[in-house]
């Protein structure tokens, strides 16, 4: 059984016990434990069930590569599924639950799949592509629901997240990824030369494997002591920033890196700290010192709990003082795993034997093992593991040829199998942004090709790999490689003082080459009934990869996708290389020919909360508010988003019957504006100043109308098209001076229009002497509309607003009611109307003065909906309603606003094209329904001919539709094919399955056709 050792454990504090709950059971661990080490210390070896077969699974690893031990951690708003137990730091009160089983972890009905598969392997790779097809409806209603419920790992969280997240934006010269000895050396070398260094380590501890490999001496001290010294030195340097619990998730273009710091996962709910912090780093050079991962060996039943990576076994013993078993068998292809045998032996755990796949075993580590009395069997391998929920023993035998076990088989009793198939450099980050790999046949690994690394904005390679990540598995090489990488990185960013920290002497045990062993055995009747797992989490076996290859899924990407190899939450960290070696063997190709699948960010999964950062709830997206916003809110406004603005949709008043409905409010607002006077906050209207000697010439090109002929002090309604000929914005242009114009745009369109003007000015007509400036926010603007409008302004006094002094479509500046104001006599409601603009800081004052002065004349505020209805009554178009990006001014009967005299304007040439100039295009018309009370639905389509069922040929659609309180009937505008030719025609609108609304085509101007009301 697994147990806590009486002593040892470099990172645990035995004086600080920690209580936690596992599947409802109260257990104890120590501070410094991971959930995995604490569970192991409590002899919990069964920690999960696999995806497809629901086979019992335990820990394979001790770090980020762990595929099996995934659990739900936390409660309520802090519950999180799929947490790797190896990455969860133990804390007081932690609750963890295993997942993907029913009814319990020990007895899981889903394991039936495994039983079936052991009789006949029906759940082979891609089996689901070959079945579940009949009857057709069964897929949606039977098969798929069952599959969906069976798949998926943990349960989804139910509540909104209780925690906060934040982002850091950071620049540095050198980013060092990984806090092992290579990374620390690189950081030290870069920092000594004056570079600004950021070094991060994904675990809570600096030092990486140096903490564990106690045989190795650096500078005459233990690895752990040397690491302590380096960390102390680095933390004393002001140009160095250090972070543990900080994983570099991805490398992106031009030295952009994303770091994921788990600030408070180990102290949930801590006040004043975010849970996670996302570091968005721009680095001059990136040093990848991410180490290497050990590979499992695919032998039969290599997934029984108790089969672990040899390095992980060593980690549990030395870092956490936990023995993962009582009697171990070590199975290796290399010298490194002998350290595990020695560590176990040292900790008092029996080692039944070390099975070494190599025929000859000569190195010093094996010699030490032998000297310690451990039996070493050269040329031996594990044929099969015995046991179900825990290892009971192994069948072993002599290896013949390609990993096959021949001859007599023996059985060794044990409860722990430590395996080592060799090491693979962690090349994920190197590869994220285009770094290429090269296959090192001797070392049996893909390593970074320094000639073909990721490149930066200047085309130079901007990433350096070092240490084990660079394929150097020995301590001395890791150190020197790190130092060189650090020096080079600093120098490339302009920091080369020629400082090279003194190189410590390394006493490490030399190691012989490994013998690659991708599959045990690789030939013979292996597949029959036993399973050799590659991808533990997704239950992908060697036989699956071979089947994929047989069926023609020969490309590594096909094999991956067909079998799901490497697609689990560990993204194949332990399985990919074995898988592609087996694939290569099956199709008779070399490993480098097969190549790897693409490495994608993130290295390990990162929370959506961290990606979101602070941008949630009220901070999700900035809101633009006018200076009168709060006043509107106090006045009962219902707001609606218009672009980034919030505008009052209507103002709902309290009445004796309660608060008005939206419809009641809108009706009241319209009638009041038509009969008395209404106030509209028009501050959101876009305002752009266009100034300069060529301003008129420029606007003649930007607008379809002629603007250069506008007289100072006068206003003109203008249309703007894009170069494709389609209308995209409109508004009133005011000539405020000889060479100065003020262009009004739609509320949502101001930024777009301003950018459009600048684009043409800067990239096409750069010789024009024109400046533009957006002043939308600088002015607050109020429309005073209605028969009493003039009276209100006259009451405020200070400016002559009589028709003689300020006729329709003219403009004046003055002091209105004591406020400096610009007054435009323009109308979007069809009423006598003034738009009064004051500097934004005076907006609220203006509004209040107008409301006060207007009181005796019946002034009431109105919102966007009343505005829309009133403009529709007048047949005025609304950008976005009557236009949709495919509509020309001519389509909207606005041909009068398209100058025929001008040689050119933006969109003119486009409007000459065949389709735009064709007859029969959709044109704007008004519609009067036969039943005046019937309001056509927005977007309803007219058809050529009503049929009992679809398809019906449509001839146009309703663009705006309202009940007009002014006219006491419904009104609508529509774009109808050949509309101008259809006056008086009755059109049919099938608005629902069995309902057709009939409407007569009429002039779109429903109210005051002569425009007498605005012109008084």
């Amino acid at each position: 059984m697994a147990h806590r050792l009486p002593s040892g454990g470099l990172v645990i504090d035995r004086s600080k016990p920690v209580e936690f709950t596992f599947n409802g059971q109260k257990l104890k661990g120590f501070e410094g434990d991971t959930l995995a080490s604490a569970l192991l210390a409590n002899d919990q070896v069964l920690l999960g069930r696999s995806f497809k077969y629901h086979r019992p699974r335990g820990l394979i690893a001790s770090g980020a590569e762990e595929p099996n031990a995934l659990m739900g951690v936390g409660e309520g708003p802090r519950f999180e599924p799929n947490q790797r137990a190896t990455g969860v730091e133990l804390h007081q009160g932690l609750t963890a639950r295993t997942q993907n089983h029913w009814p319990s972890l020990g007895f899981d009905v889903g394991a039936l799949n495994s039983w079936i598969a052991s009789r006949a392997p029906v759940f082979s790779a891609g089996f689901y592509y070959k079945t579940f097809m009949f009857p057709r409806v069964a897929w949606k209603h039977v098969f798929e629901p069952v599959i969906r419920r069976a798949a998926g790992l943990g349960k989804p969280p139910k509540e909104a997240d209780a925690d906060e997240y934040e982002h850091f934006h950071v620049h540095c010269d050198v980013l060092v990824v990984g806090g092992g000895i290579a990374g620390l050396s690189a950081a030290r070398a870069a920092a000594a030369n004056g570079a600004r260094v950021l070094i991060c380590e994904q675990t809570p501890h600096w030092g990486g494997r140096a903490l564990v490999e106690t045989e190795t001496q650096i500078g005459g001290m233990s690895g752990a002591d040397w690491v302590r010294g380096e960390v102390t030195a680095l933390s004393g340097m002001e140009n160095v920033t250090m972070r543990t619990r900080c994983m570099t998730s991805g490398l992106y273009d031009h030295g952009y890196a994303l770091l994921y710091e788990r600030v408070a996962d180990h102290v949930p709910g801590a006040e004043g700290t975010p849970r996670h912090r996302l570091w968005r780093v721009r680095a001059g050079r990136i040093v990848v010192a991410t180490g290497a991962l050990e590979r499992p060996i695919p032998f039969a039943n290599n997934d029984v709990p108790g089969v672990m990576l040899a390095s992980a076994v060593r980690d549990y013993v030395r870092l956490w003082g936990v023995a993962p078993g009582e009697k171990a068998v070590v199975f290796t292809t290399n010298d490194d795993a002998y350290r595990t045998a020695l560590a176990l032996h040292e900790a008092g755990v029996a080692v039944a034997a070390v099975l070494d796949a190599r025929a000859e075993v000569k190195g010093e580590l094996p010699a030490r093992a032998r000297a310690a009395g451990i039996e070493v069997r050269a040329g031996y391998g594990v044929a099969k593991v015995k046991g179900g929920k825990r290892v009971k023993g192994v069948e072993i035998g002599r290896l013949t040829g390609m990993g096959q076990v021949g001859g007599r088989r023996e059985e060794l009793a044990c409860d722990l199998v430590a395996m080592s198939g060799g090491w693979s450099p962690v090349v994920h980050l190197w590869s994220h942004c285009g770094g290429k790999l090269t296959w090192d046949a001797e070392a049996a690994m893909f390593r970074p090709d320094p000639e073909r690394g990721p490149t930066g904005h200047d085309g130079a390679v901007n990433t350096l790999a070092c240490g084990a990540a660079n394929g150097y598995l020995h301590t001395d090489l890791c150190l020197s490689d790190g130092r060189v990488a650090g020096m080079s990185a600093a120098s490339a960013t302009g920091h080369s003082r020629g400082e090279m920290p003194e190189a410590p002497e390394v006493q490490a045990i030399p190691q012989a080459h490994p013998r690659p062993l991708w599959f045990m055995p690789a030939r013979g009747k292996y597949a029959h009934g036993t399973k050799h797992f590659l991808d533990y989490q997704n239950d992908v076996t060697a036989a699956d990869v071979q089947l994929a290859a047989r069926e023609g899924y020969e490309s590594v990407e096909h094999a991956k996708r067909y079998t799901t190899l490497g697609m689990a939450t560990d993204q194949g960290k332990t399985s990919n290389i074995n898988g592609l070696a087996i694939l290569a063997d099956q199709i008779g190709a070399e490993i480098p020919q097969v190549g790897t699948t693409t490495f994608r960010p993130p290295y390990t999964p990162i929370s959506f909360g961290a990606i979101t950062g602070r941008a949630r709830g009220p901070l999700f997206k900035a809101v633009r508010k006018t200076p009168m916003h709060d006043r509107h809110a106090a006045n009962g406004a219902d707001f609606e988003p218009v672009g980034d603005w919030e505008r009052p949709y209507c103002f709902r008043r309290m009445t004796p019957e309660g608060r008005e409905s939206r419809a009641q409010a809108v009706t009241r607002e319209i009638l009041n504006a038509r009969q008395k006077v209404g106030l509209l906050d028009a501050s959101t209207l876009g305002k752009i100043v266009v100034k300069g000697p060529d301003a008129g010439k420029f606007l003649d090109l930007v607008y379809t109308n002629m603007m250069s002929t506008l007289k100072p002090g006068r206003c003109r309604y203008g249309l703007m098209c894009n170069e494709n000929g389609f209308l995209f914005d409109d508004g009133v242009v005011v000539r405020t001076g000889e060479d100065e114009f003020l262009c009004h745009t739609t509320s949502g369109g101001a930024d777009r229009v301003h950018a459009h003007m600048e684009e043409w000015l800067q990239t096409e007509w750069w010789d024009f002497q024109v400046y533009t400036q957006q002043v939308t926010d600088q002015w607050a603007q109020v429309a005073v509309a209605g028969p009493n409008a003039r009276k209100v302004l006259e009451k405020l006094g200070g400016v002559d607003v009589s028709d003689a002094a300020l006729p329709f479509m003219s403009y004046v500046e003055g002091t209105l009611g004591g406020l400096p104001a610009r007054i435009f006599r323009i109308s979007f409601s069809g009423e006598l109307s003034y738009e009064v603009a004051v500097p934004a800081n005076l907006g609220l004052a203006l509004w209040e003065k107008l409301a006060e002065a207007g009181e005796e004349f019946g002034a009431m505020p109105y919102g966007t909906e009343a505005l829309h209805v009133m403009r529709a009554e007048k047949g005025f178009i609304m950008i976005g309603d009557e236009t949709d990006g495919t509509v020309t001014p001519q389509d909207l009967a606005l041909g009068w606003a398209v100058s025929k005299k001008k040689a050119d304007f933006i969109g003119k040439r486009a409007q000459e094209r065949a389709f735009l100039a064709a007859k029969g295009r959709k044109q704007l018309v008004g519609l009067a329904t036969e039943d005046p009370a019937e309001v056509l639905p927005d977007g309803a389509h007219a058809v050529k001919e009503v049929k009992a069922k679809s398809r019906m040929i449509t001839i146009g659609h309703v663009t705006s539709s309202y009940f007009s309180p002014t006219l006491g009937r419904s009104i609508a505008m529509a774009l109808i094919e050949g509309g101008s030719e259809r006056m008086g025609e009755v059109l049919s609108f099938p608005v629902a399955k069995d309902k057709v609304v009939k409407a007569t085509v009429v002039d779109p101007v429903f109210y005051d056709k002569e425009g007498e009301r605005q012109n008084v």
Partner: protein
Amino acid sequence: MKRYSAFAIAKEALGYHVGWERAWGNPEPKPEYEVVIVGAGGHGLATAYYLAKNHGITNVVVLEKGWLGGGNTGRNTTIIRSNYLQDPSAEIFELSRRLYEDLSQKLNFNIMFSPRGVLMLAQTEHELRAWERTAHANRLFGIESEMVTPERIKRIVPIINIEGPRYPVLGGLWQARGGTARHDAVAWGYARAASDLGVDIIQQCEVTGIDRDEHGVTGVRTSRGAIRCKKLCIVVAGHSGVLADMAGFRLPVESVPLQALVSEPIKPCIDCVVMANTVHGYMSQSDKGELVIGGGADGYNAYTQRGSFQHVEETVRALTETFPMISRLRMLRQWGGIVDMTGDRSPIISKTPVPGIFINCGWGTGGFKAIPGSGWAMAGLVAKGEDPVAGPFSLDRFTEGRMIDESVAAAVAH
């Protein structure tokens, strides 16, 4: 071709699966074919299949420089819907969606078409009106789609926050027979069925040149030798411009990367596809349990299939706001695909200035859902010289200004 079935699996399982044959052939290229199709993505393979199936043209080869289905077919977010506004779009996407319905049975390959419903949220008054217009157009066209209320949306997707402070959900356009399919399986299924009908599929075969004489195309040069042909179809999303350049003409397309990501798998929590265009994000859950999330496209040309971060950030923000419970879930993997964008964001299925060369490209962000319909229409065009579905998507629409603009209604992500 051995038929796939539960029975066949059981039978092969007893023999430990050594009896399965290759899903598609691996022939040497012949010196001449009637039709050469460049690009073994979904669209190319579907074209080959329908040429054989609908038109009896089997002397066809599909050339692929990498591995079949390795482009956008295997990189998209697998959404299938047909609730488009414009008639030509509705025509091809609805044809496609209908073909998806029984594609598993037709191909004898389970492509897992799952009509789990597609919901497009309206989060502004403007968007609401746009979807209403689309719903009317769809109903009259014969596409089943309908407007749904916020309350019904909450019932369809219980994890949604319909009262978002910034953009409350005002309604939605719901297409119950839209859904998803297993993207790789679509390519594999078409490849297997086309191969069975006699089509040659040649992988690891890059086209390096296109030969033509005064009458039109005569063949292609490839990394595995020259191949003569009477007709040539270019169906290489993302790289259309490069191939067109070889043939001596240009295309109104630009290649930009599009971003996508998946979460770690969890038990079912969202049953349909939800698209939130105002905030820029869409999400569904795969059968495996991963949340499949679509991000935006980069605004500049690039041919790198890698992920960038800012679009992921924008999309995840939008979805955390829309589905607050995802905050504690994690991003497992992000990637990019190269998409062709045309001037009106609608595809091109057309003859080209070179007689005998046909082009199928410009699917932008919406190609996967169109694979069956696109292959069907393209096969018709190639076999008969014209096709009613392909017709409106001809190249000359750009000369005439006859845009098929689906962004009309709103900023619609496909």
